[in-house]
């Protein structure tokens, strides 16, 4: 890396200046926040860390409507999503300065709860529970009586395919995974330079969702002990299935979200994608020339009698223990994710797929996404599929499992080697990390 001393000196002095400036604003902020905490009965102002685009406009609705009445003002602060936000929240919490509200993906809730970041808001969210599917709500309670977040969006998994190319090659939309494998092989026979899809190791959520569909329970509790089942029978079945397809060359092994992947989708080199309800947005930017040529179907099943799907993505709104106004924050969280006007605004401004069941087919979701204008019943179908989402089982170190997945499955996909070995690595690393932190783990 050509970072030489000279450049580093420059950046260091720049960093110092910034740090000094930040120090000054931090001091100023300290001064003003003291004023806030004293005025508990009066006007309340809350900070909300979120990565959802357009959230400021939705928050404006609150500030001008119900928030104005209750004198609760919310300020949305845009954040980077994913793992880095979790680290940022944990660090802020360590300093006792976490924001009042945070956006958190479902799988990181146990990590945050385990670090005592999230407040129990069960008393302040009213009848919010009734607005969500049980499987979705259960993720925010971690199986306890507490409620640690209000679900915002969900990502039920579906099968996307190029309708025109499936017709051209005489392929049938697979309803079972066995048929899926047959379809991949049939395509290879008819067009050797094309792939049905790819196995990508750069997003752990995809594999986690597929395992969830197969019935995997990665983290469960037994009394005071955690049990890790990352290499349980269901997950092994899924790993072996995809590993075999990669090994025999029936599908590609290159990661997604890369320029070649975009090109493969755009030119029809890859003609299907196992994805979630948010796929139209991704396809719009990745494969703009294929507009109107795709169709969505339920995820293939492990046996014909089944009808379940996994979930990939989705997030919730949580209140932190550092917040001095937890009840007010919980009130906003409940409004944001259950109020009709808020959900419509979220759908319009942010393009999210709401977790609240009644919002999944109304308003913005009455018509299909523009990219799928050829499938008028897109969202009706999506809402039906969302109902079949299998329960998920997250634990306190999902981040470790996900990190290990990327490396273990990345090299297995590259070398076309045994995926079950990679799965075992994931299991071992996850258990080792839990034990290192002092968790009791049952065998």
């Amino acid at each position, binding site marked *: 890396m050509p970072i030489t*001393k000279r450049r580093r000196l420059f950046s260091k002095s720049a960093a110092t200046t910034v740090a000094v400036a930040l120090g000054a604003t931090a001091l100023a902020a300290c001064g003003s926040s003291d004023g806030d905490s004293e005025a508990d009965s009066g006007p309340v102002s809350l900070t909300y860390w979120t990565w959802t685009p357009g959230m400021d406009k939705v928050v404006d609705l609150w500030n001008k409507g119900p928030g104005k009445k209750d004198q609760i003002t919310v300020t949305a602060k845009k954040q980077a999503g994913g793992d880095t936000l979790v680290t940022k929240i944990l660090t802020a919490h360590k300093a006792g300065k976490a924001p009042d509200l945070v956006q958190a993906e479902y799988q990181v809730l146990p990590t945050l709860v385990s670090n005592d970041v999230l407040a129990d808001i069960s008393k302040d969210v009213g009848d919010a529970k009734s607005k969500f599917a049980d499987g979705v709500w259960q993720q925010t309670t971690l199986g306890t009586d507490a409620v640690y977040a209000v679900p915002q969006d969900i990502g039920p998994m579906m099968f996307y395919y190029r309708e025109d190319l499936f017709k051209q090659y005489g392929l049938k939309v697979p309803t079972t995974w066995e048929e899926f494998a047959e379809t991949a092989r049939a395509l290879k026979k008819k067009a050797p330079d094309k792939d049905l899809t790819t196995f990508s190791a750069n997003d752990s959520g995809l594999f986690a969702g597929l395992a969830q569909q197969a019935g995997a329970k990665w983290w469960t509790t037994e009394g005071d002990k955690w049990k890790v089942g990352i290499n349980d029978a269901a997950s092994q079945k899924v790993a072996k299935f995809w590993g075999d397809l990669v090994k025999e060359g029936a599908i590609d092994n290159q990661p997604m979200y890369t320029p070649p992947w975009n090109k493969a989708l755009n030119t029809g080199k890859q003609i299907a994608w196992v994805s979630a309800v948010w796929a139209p947005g991704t396809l719009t930017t990745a494969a703009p020339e294929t507009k109107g040529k795709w169709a969505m179907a339920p995820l293939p099943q492990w046996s014909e009698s089944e009808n379940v799907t996994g979930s990939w993505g989705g997030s919730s709104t949580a209140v932190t223990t550092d917040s001095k106004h937890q009840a007010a924050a919980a009130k906003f969280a409940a409004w944001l994710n259950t109020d009709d006007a808020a959900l419509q605004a979220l759908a319009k401004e942010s393009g999210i797929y709401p977790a609240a069941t009644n919002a999944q087919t109304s308003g913005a979701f009455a018509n299909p996404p523009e990219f799928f204008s050829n499938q008028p019943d897109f969202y009706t179908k999506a809402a039906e599929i969302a109902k079949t989402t299998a329960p998920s089982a997250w634990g306190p170190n999902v*981040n470790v499992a996900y990190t290990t997945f990327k490396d273990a499955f990345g090299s297995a996909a590259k070398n076309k080697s045994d995926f079950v070995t990679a799965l075992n690595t994931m299991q071992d690393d996850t258990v080792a990390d839990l034990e290192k932190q002092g968790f009791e783990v049952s065998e």
Partner: protein
Amino acid sequence: MTSGRRQSYGVKGAPYAFLIPATVLFTLFFALPIGYAVWLSFRKVKVSGLGLGAGARKEVWAGFRNYSDALTDSELIDGALRVLGYGCIVVPVMLGLALLFALMLDSDKVRLAPFTRLAIFLPYAIPGVVAALLWGFLYLPDVSPFHFVLDRLDLPQPDLLDGGPLYLALSNIAVWGGTGFNMIVIYTSLQAIPAEVYEAAKLDGATPLQIALRIKVPMVAPSLVLTFFFSIIATLQVFNEPTTLKPLTNSVSTTWSPLMKVYQDAFGKGDIYAAAAQATIIALATLLLSFGFLRAANRRQKQEAAR
């Protein structure tokens, strides 16, 4: 009288007053963070029960556990070996090219010197992340214009993001970006050599090549030592290029270089204690290696001067 005395007091205290800003900044933004990182490296979390709810997680003393874990961590050691291999390509090639370009620019016969100098230097002005992205696109078989041309000519198309070629691919980015800077450093010290030295050499019948090898290179040796020193540090800290290429290929793991492992442990796995210990080890290794090299180089120079 009184005013004179006061003045002398002021003069006495002045150096300390001038030192205060630097000392405060150094303490606040350098010594304290480093001290805190070292402190963290001796800590760890201890969870009780299921770890859910308040007070279930405590920070406790870990002794040297984080250090022994880091030193026995095969990923960290593999990462160090990978970086060593990478450095063995980058440092000689980059400095060799830098020296060659500097000597060529310094020769009498060069044309368009200012333009050439700028052209070679320019890649250095491009941020490492942008450079890595740019090259990444050129390496990826499906979008690379090189592969397109090779394909049209029916020539073999090597996958540069796999196995051994990956080291070449990464090294190429570093060489492309770093040669210009090192060239400027060497070139500047070439310019400082007095013209009489060349004149004397020419009168003694030295050819341009002999002047270059016997006079110029030994006289810019201090600059070579300096650039070598910088290059070693930069190599040990390689992070931008592999991190940027990571999402594009399965060949680069999230812990490819030691610094990536630190980043991964701190921000991926959320174990800042282990990350702090690894960071301390890397800092110490960098200090030892670079200053060890500097001392060895200095000693040699002194010996040669004494001779």
